[in-house]
C-alpha cells in the first residue's frame, strides 16, 4: 500500500458483507415471489421493486464507492434517475388517461387468428 494514497479503499469485510447481503436479498425476493403462503396481492410488485432498489443502492453506495466520492457523482446519478422518473410518470399518466379510447377500439376491432 502506498502510504500517501488518498483515495478511499473499501475494506474487504465491507465488500464481502455487501455481497452476502445482496445474495440474501436476491434469495428473499425469489422466495417472496415464488412461494404461495403469503400473498401481498397488489403490493407484490412494489415489494419486489423495493428489494431491487435496496440492492441497487447497496451496489451504488459501496461497490461504486459513492459514499466516499465527490458529491457531484452522486448528484449525476440521482438526477438521471429523476429524469427517468419524469419521463416515465408523464408518459404513463397520459397512457392511462387515453386507455379507454384504445380499449373501445380494440373491442370493436378484434384481431383474428390469421390477421397480423
Amino acid at each position, binding site marked *: 500500500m502506498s502510504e500517501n494514497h488518498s483515495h478511499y479503499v473499501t475494506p474487504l469485510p465491507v465488500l464481502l458483507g455487501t455481497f452476502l447481503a445482496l445474495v440474501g436479498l436476491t434469495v428473499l425476493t425469489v422466495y417472496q415471489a415464488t412461494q404461495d403462503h403469503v400473498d401481498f396481492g397488489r403490493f407484490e410488485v412494489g415489494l419486489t421493486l423495493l428489494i431491487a432498489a435496496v440492492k441497487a443502492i447497496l451496489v451504488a453506495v459501496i461497490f461504486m464507492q459513492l459514499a466516499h466520492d465527490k458529491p457531484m457523482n452522486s448528484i449525476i446519478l440521482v438526477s438521471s434517475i429523476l429524469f427517468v422518473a419524469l419521463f416515465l410518470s408523464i408518459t404513463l399518466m397520459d397512457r392511462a388517461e387515453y386507455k379507454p*379510447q*384504445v380499449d373501445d377500439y*380494440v373491442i370493436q376491432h378484434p384481431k383474428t387468428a390469421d*390477421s397480423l
Partner: protein
Amino acid sequence: MIGSQLFSDSMHLPTLPLAGFWFGDSATATAENVDKVFGIITWICIAFFVLVVGMMIVFIVKYRARPGHVEQPSPSHNNALEIIWSVIPILLVALIFFLGFNGFMDMRTPPADSYDIQVIASKWNFTFQYPNGASSPVLHVPPDRPVRLVQQSADVIHSLFIPAFRIKQDCVPGRYTYQWFTAHTPGEYDLFCAEYCGLDHSNMNSYVKVHESEAAFQEALAELSKPPVWGPDWGEKLWREKGCKTCHSNDGSAIVGGGPTWKDLWDKEETMADGSKVTVDHDYILESIRKPQAKIVGGYQGVNMTAYPESLVKPAEVDAIIAYIQYLSDAYDGPTKEEAEAAAAAAEEGGEATDGGGSEAAADDQPAADEASESSESTDEEPAAPEAGEEE
C-alpha cells in the same frame, strides 16, 4: 362542464380587428373564440415586439459608434429591474394559458346530445359514416346542431383539420379520437388532412357541407344512403372514395408502387408470387380485399396493401366493386345501366305497393337489404328529424 362555463365568460371579450387579417372564414362559435384568443395573444406579441425592436433601433441610432462618441458608464446589473421583467411576462403568460385552456376544454368536451358521425381515415381519403348507414367522402352536417366526429384510421396517422372551424384532431390507428363542433353558418368549407401520411397526403382533402336547414341535411342523408342501383356505377364511386384508385388504375395503366390494373382483370388467370395460378373470380377478389397478403400476384410482392375489413368495405360494396371490375372487362355481359334502372324502378313500385306508405320508413330505410338490419338498429338512438313528416 367547467370548460364551457369559463368559455362562455370569455365570449364577452371584445372582438379584436386583427383576427380578420390572419384568418379566413369562421363558421363556429369555437372559431370565433379562437380568433379572439389569437387576437389577444397577437396584441401582446406586438406590444413586446415594438418594445424590444423599438428600443433596439433607438439604441442603434443613439449609441452607434461614431467619431467622438464613447460608451457611458451604467450599472451592469439591477436586481429590481430583472425581477420586474421576469414577473410581468409571468403574469401575461398566465393569462394566455388561461384563455387557451378555456377554449381547449370546450373543444374537448362535446355536449351530451351531439350527433355522432364516424370518420374513417385511410390513405388518402376520409370516409364519413352517418348513423343511418350512409357514407360519403364529403362531410355533411346540419346547421346549429352539435356534431361529434368519432375518428379512426385504417392505416397510418391522419389528422382531420377544418380551418373554418379552427379544429383539428389526429386520427390514430388502433384507437378512437373525438372532436366536435356546432356550425352556425351554412356553406362549404375546406377540410384537410394535417398529419403527414405519405404519398398523396396533399391530395387528402375534402370539404364540409353545412346544410341550410335540418331538413336539407336529412334529405341529403337520405339521398346518400341510396346505393346506386347499377353496380358498376357504385363500384366506380367506391373505387374513387375508398382509395382503390391510388393503386389500381381502371384503364390498363400501371401505377408505380401500386397493384394490378382492374382493366380486363376479371376472369384473367394470374400467376402468384409462389408460382401457383389463380383465376380472378368473386372469391379471389373478396379475399384480396379482406386479406391482401394471402395471395400476391407475381411482381407485386413489395406492395403492402392495407386490409379492408367489413367495417371499411361492406359486403354489398364488395359486390359493387366486383361488378365494376367485371364491367371494365371487354367481355362484360351484365345488365346495362338502363336495364338496371328499369329493374330498380319496377322493384320500387312493387315495394311501395306492399309497404302501405309508412312515413318514417321512407326517410331511413332506403339502404340495400343487407344494410337494413344495421340501420334499423342504429336509428333507434337517432332523434327523429322534425321535418321528416312534412316531406311526405
